[in-house]
């Protein structure tokens, strides 16, 4: 069974169709990256997968997580996956360990601090920072906490919204490696991003969202030009 299945899914606001008959599947051990310019509906698609779409949205088609339809069982679906938003969502007054423990307690998951420490080590967060308030963390460090949290949640499906946004090249590279590691560990990952080079680096399937349509693209990083990228973002495959 696919971790995530999207069949002929459309989403419209008033007369404007944001997503048009989209089809997508994410399997275990697969990373799918969705590219697209601002306002093309990438975040809307993620919200629809999470069942957090605006009430005024007119939806058509199906989204299933582990075979369960999101429209009817949104809360169940959300419990089955780990969602990492664009903004590293950690509480500044809590340390990395406290943040992870808190979020896990809300998901009714109880793990020992040793396991949390293992995941923090796995994502490469400096041990000296583990007990410091996250208010003092850099964005890269916060992203690592979020990823450690996703791993600690032991979800089979990871949804990541612009994970590289605002990260320096070194932090971006570290994060890319972590995503690949997740894939190797058998997780399914859906990444929404602007960062084409990273997407090429870690994804098994690259999709472009443009004019409401989701189309597969094949890119050779050695042949990328500004013109080629501009055409891609304008929906000219």
């Amino acid at each position, binding site marked *: 069974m696919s971790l995530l299945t999207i069949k002929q899914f459309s989403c419209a606001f008033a007369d404007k169709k944001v997503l048009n008959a989209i089809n997508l599947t994410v399997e275990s051990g697969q990373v799918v990256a969705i590219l697209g310019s601002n306002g093309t509906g990438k975040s809307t698609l993620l919200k629809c997968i999470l069942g957090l779409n605006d009430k005024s949205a007119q939806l058509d088609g199906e989204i299933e997580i582990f075979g369960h339809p999101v429209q009817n069982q949104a809360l169940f679906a959300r419990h089955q996956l780990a969602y990492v938003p664009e903004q590293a969502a950690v*509480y500044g007054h809590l340390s990395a360990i406290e943040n992870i423990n808190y*979020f896990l307690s809300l998901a009714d998951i109880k793990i020992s601090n040793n396991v949390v420490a293992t995941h923090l080590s796995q994502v490469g967060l400096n041990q000296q920072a583990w007990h410091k308030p996250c208010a003092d963390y850099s964005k890269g460090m916060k992203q690592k906490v979020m990823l450690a949290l996703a791993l600690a949640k032991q979800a089979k499906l990871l949804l990541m919204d612009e994970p590289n946004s605002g990260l320096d090249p070194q932090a971006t590279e570290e994060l890319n490696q972590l995503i690949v590691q997740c894939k190797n560990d058998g997780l399914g990952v859906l990444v929404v991003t602007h960062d084409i080079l990273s997407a090429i680096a870690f994804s098994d399937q690259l999709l472009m969202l443009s004019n409401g349509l989701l189309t597969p693209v094949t890119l050779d990083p050695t042949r990328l030009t500004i013109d080629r990228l501009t055409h891609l973002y304008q929906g000219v495959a």
Partner: protein
Amino acid sequence: MTHNPVIAIMRNEWLRYWRTRIPFLLMIILVTLWMIATFAAHLHWQDHARAVATVSQKSQQDWQSQPDRHPHRVSHYGDFVAKPIHPLSVIEPGILDQSGHLVYLEAHRLNSANFNPATEATSLGRFPLITPAMIVQWWMPLCLIMIGYASITSEKTTGTLAYLRGNGTNAWHIALGKWLALCIPLLLLVLIQATLTLVWIWGSDQALVRLFTLLIAQIIYIAGWCWLVILVSWQSKQAHGALLTLLLLWVCICIIVPKGLANAAQIAYPTQPRSEAEYHAEEKLKSIGDSHNPDDPHFAAFKANLLKQYGVDSTEDMPVNYNGLLMQEGERLTTQVYREQQAQHQAQLQKQNASIRAWLWLSPALAMQYIHMASSGNDLAHHLAFLAQAEDRRYQLIQYLNQIHTEKVHQHDDKNTRVSADFWKNAPRPAIHLSHLSVSKVAIISGLLVLLAWVLAPLWLLSRVIKRL
């Protein structure tokens, strides 16, 4: 760590209060303010109670130690009556400072507390001494705003709300956890206050029902404010927007609307100043009759009736003192006129209160004040009930003295006659009691209904915005 998401969210919020210091400091300031208010109000109440006790005792002694004298002199000797004060006045003195707690009862005069201006009678016209009720009514909501305005907006700006929602945390669990974190410390303070108050008022008149009414209203009021803070914080995109919106609401609910309604009510239903009311009463009395004028038609008819009743030709032949009968009739007339004036004045006050009640839904703070004042026995209804009792006592006493004048003083030596002091000692001076809480039932019921709507309205609005990420 607990696995109940609501409790976990509440505990995390408390941890934020503690670690970011400012909410915790605000709570300390609030508790300090509350302690100062309680202490000041307690001293204030003791001053009242001491004055009432001293004056009542002195007045009683002076009354009882009057020598043999003419009854009309006794009727002008006067009688002080103390307004019964409930110990809950420590929480809310209401109109006590404006209406006074002692009245002087004298012949031919309505008691001295009857013609107070309306703004005083509704206790909305001035800023009184800081009291525990004021802490609940004004400062607790302000403190709640300062502590909680960013409770949801900060989660939005840091992305944690999106994360929580995206990872399956129920929106209502988040709202309830935040609400409990805001609510519980203040409810705890209110419950501590109620417990201390219970000890303080134990054994007093209707202690439990009055305190229970007050406590229920305070709990609903605080709960409503907490939901409003959560609602605005959820609705706002930025923390400063939430803060400004909440501060604006606080200013409107706690200051502008109560003050505006009181002033509008007084403009719509104006009351006469005391001196003007007395002038009109005197004018009316003159038009009814003048007992000193032998040609006055009313008193001429009164005299003719008496002569006929006793079957005599002259008042000097009557078996009773005609001057005493004249006094009785004069007292009846003046009382009738003054009571009419009083009724007009009270009708205006009632209209003012009714017009304010009609708009009470605009300000839960005002509804809370109504319940505070009613529960502590210091609202307009209790005051009017006290005035009615005092006036009954005055009229009974003066007519008793006029009766003695009529029966025990010979009219041929009227001015030089002295009557035994035993008559004053046994004069009817019925005790004045604090009225039953039911005199304020309209204010209490309307106040509680407004407060119920106050707690439900933000919940309903929250249910409409809570689905938004």
